[in-house]
């Protein structure tokens, strides 16, 4: 009875693991490399998951492809470039820098620059206006009289 309960408790975790171990490369270092590459590649049909996280068919095909390339001795960039050449910029979870993505990367710097410009202009305007005008002799005399009063 207890064994059955235990088996039932284990069943879901077994179900989740199905398919994965068979996909893995026997060499742990190569498998780690394949996973590192896979985590940088977007699953094109689920869009906000990497191919390592997704159970979609296409993600599984790409995982297998990445592992084949790694097993054949391709470098990480070579594997990434292979997928990038076929699926375009969108497959890379880290957007590359090119003329399409330049505005995206430049925007924070542009906004910061604009803010600095506004601050600078405000300060300059304060500076040109100068401090308060000095008191006239008449006003100074009145002030002195006021201060003398108890």
């Amino acid at each position, binding site marked *: 009875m207890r064994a059955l309960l235990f088996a039932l408790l284990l069943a879901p975790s077994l179900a989740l693991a199905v398919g994965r171990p068979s996909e893995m490369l026997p060499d742990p270092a190569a498998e780690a490399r394949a996973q590192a590459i896979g985590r940088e590649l977007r699953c*094109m049909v689920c869009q906000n998951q990497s191919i390592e996280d997704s159970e979609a068919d*296409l993600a599984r095909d*790409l995982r297998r492809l990445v592992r084949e390339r790694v097993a054949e001795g391709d470098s990480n960039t070579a594997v990434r470039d292979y997928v990038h050449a*076929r*699926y*375009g910029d969108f497959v890379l979870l880290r957007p590359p820098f090119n003329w399409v993505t330049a505005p995206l990367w430049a925007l924070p710097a542009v906004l910061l620059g604009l803010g600095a410009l506004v601050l600078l202009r405000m300060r300059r305007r304060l500076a040109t206006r100068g401090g308060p005008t000095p008191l006239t002799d008449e006003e100074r005399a009145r002030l002195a009289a006021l201060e003398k009063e108890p």
Partner: protein
Amino acid sequence: MSEAKSPLSRRAILWAPLGLAAAGGVGFWAMLRGMRDGSYDPRGVPSALLGKPAPRMALPPVEGIELPTIAPEMLASPGMPVLVNFWASWCVPCVVEHPQLVALQRRGVRILGINYKDKPADAARFLVRHGNPFQALAADAEGRAGIEYGLYGVPETYLLDRQGIIRWRWAGPMMPDTLSAELDPLLRRHA
């Protein structure tokens, strides 16, 4: 702020956010309109292969179907615009698309089929039932050809020009208005 400039700049401060919001609104409205009439797809990503030669890998024919497989020469420089169509018998949108393929074939358009992750017997039954628009048919049991083309899913169609360069990709079923609005002008241009 000097006294003379004050009313103008104050008005600018008042109107700037309104103007910004209005511009944003117009942009958003244009996006929604585009989504409704199909000219804008927020999830659509242009194929990375546009302007590049079609991948040429050797693929086996589909067993039990009397059609030759796709030979590399058919893709290299076909001399006329050619469609490469990924499909599968298990794919419901492919059933929806199929009459358009048959109509294109009747008009003399050359269509090369790639049967994606399918069982040959099911594929054969599909073609008997819905008609065969393909001049050649290759089997992509593992989905490898799909990856070479940067395929998302089935159906998906690629237009190759006379030199075998990919000019157009359509993800999803081609409907009659896809043909009239998108494909026919391209076929005329590349004929």
